[in-house]
């Protein structure tokens, strides 16, 4: 087999795994958009906030310590204990559910029936507010996140591919774990939506608010539920991304990677978010591999958007959306 082809295969595999991350973030957007029509600009910051909270809890740091110390003249920063990863994740989930309540009760409850653009503006406000809270709560230093996920080259794949092609693929264990976790998460979400009472309520609200109300579904409850789920998805994305490149404010920029995925997959389609993420992941990796060297590299920054834009022109409804035919 020609050498270039073997390299391309490795690049494709790695692109797929990066794509899984994009899918995860896009999924958070889709959940909220489907149920409430809100395009949640804060999804990326939610991932950052979740990751920071997780690290903070794990390391036993006192939340808002700077604020507390400034007010009371104290010098406390740490509880002096370490919280096991699993417990810390559980506590962080609770924090994200609390955040969902806050978002619904304090903000969106009062904006019911407003124009989508107003709701979108509110999420921009929310994003910067949450960024501020995250900063105040846990400080702005870069943290390393370690919940015990395996990292580094997967030797089994390295060896197998070496035996096949005479060249060992470099696949990161963390990417493999992320892929498995994402797959389980998506399967879980689909089962939840399909087979539980709450999932049915969620689908009903996504379809028609008025009809949902008339069969006895509380919109408020469903909206808190989807924000909680989006918070959970953000936490998972935050863990994976944070483990890969550290917990810092740039983590919230992963939202920018989700945008082209949404353009590609459609804003209301869960399969669209997943397949869209994979296409973008592979597409940008292959493009960088093949064209990048010719034009001086760094095509990852823009290629996804160009791909999505092209797609948008020819299929505005996204990969899985139904074709919109204007009735006149």
């Amino acid at each position, binding site marked *: 087999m020609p050498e270039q082809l073997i390299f391309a295969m490795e690049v494709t595999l790695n692109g797929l795994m990066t794509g899984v991350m994009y899918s995860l973030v896009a999924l958070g957007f889709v959940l909220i958009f489907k149920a409430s029509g809100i395009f949640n600009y804060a999804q990326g910051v939610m991932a950052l906030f979740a990751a920071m909270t997780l690290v903070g809890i794990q390391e036993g740091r006192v939340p808002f310590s700077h604020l507390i110390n400034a007010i009371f003249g104290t010098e406390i920063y740490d509880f002096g204990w370490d919280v096991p990863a699993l417990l810390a994740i559980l506590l962080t989930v609770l924090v994200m559910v609390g955040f969902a309540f806050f978002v619904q009760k304090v903000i969106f409850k009062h904006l019911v029936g407003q124009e989508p653009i107003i709701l979108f503006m509110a999420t921009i406000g929310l994003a910067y507010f949450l960024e501020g809270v995250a900063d105040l709560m846990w400080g702005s230093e870069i943290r390393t996140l370690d919940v015990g996920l395996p990292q580094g080259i997967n030797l089994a794949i390295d060896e197998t591919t070496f035996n096949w092609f005479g060249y060992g693929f470099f696949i990161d264990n963390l990417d493999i774990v992320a892929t498995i976790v994402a797959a389980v998460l998506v399967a879980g979400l689909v089962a939840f939506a399909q087979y539980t*009472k709450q999932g*049915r309520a969620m689908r009903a609200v996504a379809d028609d608010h008025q*009809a949902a*109300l*008339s069969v*006895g579904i509380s919109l408020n409850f469903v909206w808190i539920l989807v924000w909680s789920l989006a918070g959970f998805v953000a936490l998972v994305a935050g863990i994976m991304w944070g483990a890969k490149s550290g917990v810092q404010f740039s983590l919230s920029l992963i939202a920018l990677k989700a945008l082209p995925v949404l353009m590609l997959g459609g804003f209301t389609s869960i399969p669209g978010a997943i397949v869209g993420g994979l296409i973008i992941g592979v597409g940008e990796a292959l493009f960088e591999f093949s064209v990048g060297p010719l034009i001086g590299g760094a095509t990852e920054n823009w290629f996804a958007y160009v791909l999505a834009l092209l797609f948008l022109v020819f299929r505005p409804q996204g990969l899985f959306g139904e074709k919109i035919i204007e009735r006149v």
Partner: protein
Amino acid sequence: MNDMSTSTVTEDGRTIGGVMMEMRNITLRFGGVVAIKDISFDIREGEIRAIIGPNGAGKSSMLNVISGFYHPQEGEVWYHGARRKAMKPYQVARQGIARTFQNIALFDGMSVLDNIMTGRINHMSSSFLDQAIWWGKAQREEVEHRRKAEEIIDFLEIQAIRKTPVGRLPYGLKKRVELARALVAEPKLLLLDEPMAGMNVEEKEDMSRFILDVNDEFGTTIALIEHDMGVVMDLSDRVVVMDYGKKIGDGSPDEVRQNQEVIDAYLGVAHD
């Protein structure tokens, strides 16, 4: 609850009980528009109560007040002998009040069966943790809901379209699916906003038969809005007549038919 002293038996042998729902001095305004003006009336257990009136009279608004979609500025709603606090639509639905809409509100992305199953949602066990832990129990429950849904599907004779996405159905069948979704909730009170609008004669006859059967077989109390006077006279036990937000008549079909104010209101307005 059911005041037996006031029960009556109709000509066709159905028992009509005491007052189930009572609207007291309801006034509803939208800015300057007074949609409902100081209206009182009641709905009795087991009856078919019609609300009629020309376009824009405030009929749908009244149904929306009963089902919690609109909140009147003045007046009280009494249900089963207790004053009802201001309620959200989903809370009203959970009290056993189901409804259909004048311009149909279905889950367009779902099949007929899924639409109807969603009507069962308040009968489903409460927590998803329960469902995850007691898998067997959840399965049995699901079977029971399916059985109920199929029963209603048979009742309304829509077996042939069970798996069809509702978005693709013609108008008349959509109305029927919406009725099915309301019925499967096993409501005590069923509110129908123009269940026969836009239907041909044959479809209207079917729908009339279904409404009578629901009332007769399930004992469901029904309040319905309808424009077709012939249908109203055939179906209803008592009729409220509205015009420009005011109540201008209330009584048996024969009584309101002879009411001069009602006759004037209808003569003054072109009707379909």
